[in-house]
């Protein structure tokens, strides 16, 4: 029976492979996008200005999954992680790595509209840095920052602000394009509301990714 499924899959993808015609109509919208948004990195301009409507749903998907994972994992017993086998050389490296990921987060998020990067990348990079530090050396200290910096309230506040800002941009596009045109091309402060959205998405994705992996770690124990 499985052979039938494999044959069907091969047939489907063979027909797709044969019938794909890659040079039919190659669009080149870079000029139109960059001219209107006055922002060098046209990819960030697309997903934060042209198709902002998708990104709003995208951020909601991420926060729903983060809290969904937390509630679904809530039913499992918390794994004790006192006896964390700590190798001191690894702690030093992962501590340095976490600090490095903070700087990388700030760089990528702040001028995500000038150089490659953006909210999503920054959030995930920071989350990976802090989680590796939590995994290898001391999970309690790594997760203590979550309450000290009150990230939980920050997370829901940033979701609300993202939603408010994007409704404003979508309802009054004329005003936003005038704001965009005012900044000088290529400078960090030039992107109108785009850098602010980038920062908020970065915080949101960081909080979501940290909560998800934190839930996994606290349920399954550290390495």
């Amino acid at each position: 029976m499985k052979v039938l499924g494999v044959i069907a899959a091969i047939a489907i993808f063979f027909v797709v492979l044969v019938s794909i015609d890659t040079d039919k109509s190659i669009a080149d919208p870079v000029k139109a996008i960059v001219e209107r948004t006055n922002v060098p990195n046209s990819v960030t301009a697309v997903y934060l200005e042209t198709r902002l409507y998708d990104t709003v749903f995208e951020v909601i998907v991420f926060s729903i999954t983060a809290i969904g994972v937390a509630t679904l994992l809530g039913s499992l017993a918390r794994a004790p992680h006192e006896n964390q086998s700590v190798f001191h050389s690894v702690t030093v490296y992962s501590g340095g790595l976490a600090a490095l990921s903070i700087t990388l987060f700030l760089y990528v998020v702040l001028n995500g509209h000038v150089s490659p990067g953006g909210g999503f990348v920054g959030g995930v990079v920071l989350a990976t840095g802090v989680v590796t530090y939590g995994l290898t050396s001391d999970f309690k200290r790594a997760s203590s920052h979550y309450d000290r910096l009150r990230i939980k309230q920050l997370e829901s506040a940033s979701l609300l602000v993202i939603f408010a800002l994007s409704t404003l941009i979508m309802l009054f596009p004329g005003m936003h394009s005038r704001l965009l045109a005012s900044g000088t091309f290529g400078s960090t402060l030039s992107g109108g509301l785009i850098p602010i959205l980038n920062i908020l998405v970065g915080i949101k994705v960081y909080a979501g990714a940290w909560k998800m992996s934190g839930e996994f770690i606290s349920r399954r124990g550290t390495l």
Partner: protein
Amino acid sequence: MTGSIVIYFSIMGMLAGTIGMILSKNIIKKILSLGIVETSINMMYTGISSRGGIIPPIVSGDFSLSYADPIPQAVIITGIVISFALLCLSLVLAIIIYNNYHTMDVETIERNFEREEE
């Protein structure tokens, strides 16, 4: 030219992922094969965007260069984050099942459900 090569490889990757999903018996393996399908789709969209040119679409003033198309790239960043969210959710469900039945094997799980059905 490079765009179509990436597209052809990603379709073969999708084929490999689908076959992996059919043949594997362990839940984690099925979720892994699903991850392969999703990575191949993300790669295909970069292939689509690089049909016109492979210069990254970060404009530095002159528009004469043959830039890659930014729209599929921006669109697939959303796709990558969605596939990560799906992956986490499926792993949580697999863990919940593992905690009740202590097995990751698809047949034993479905046999347990049939036994409970009667």
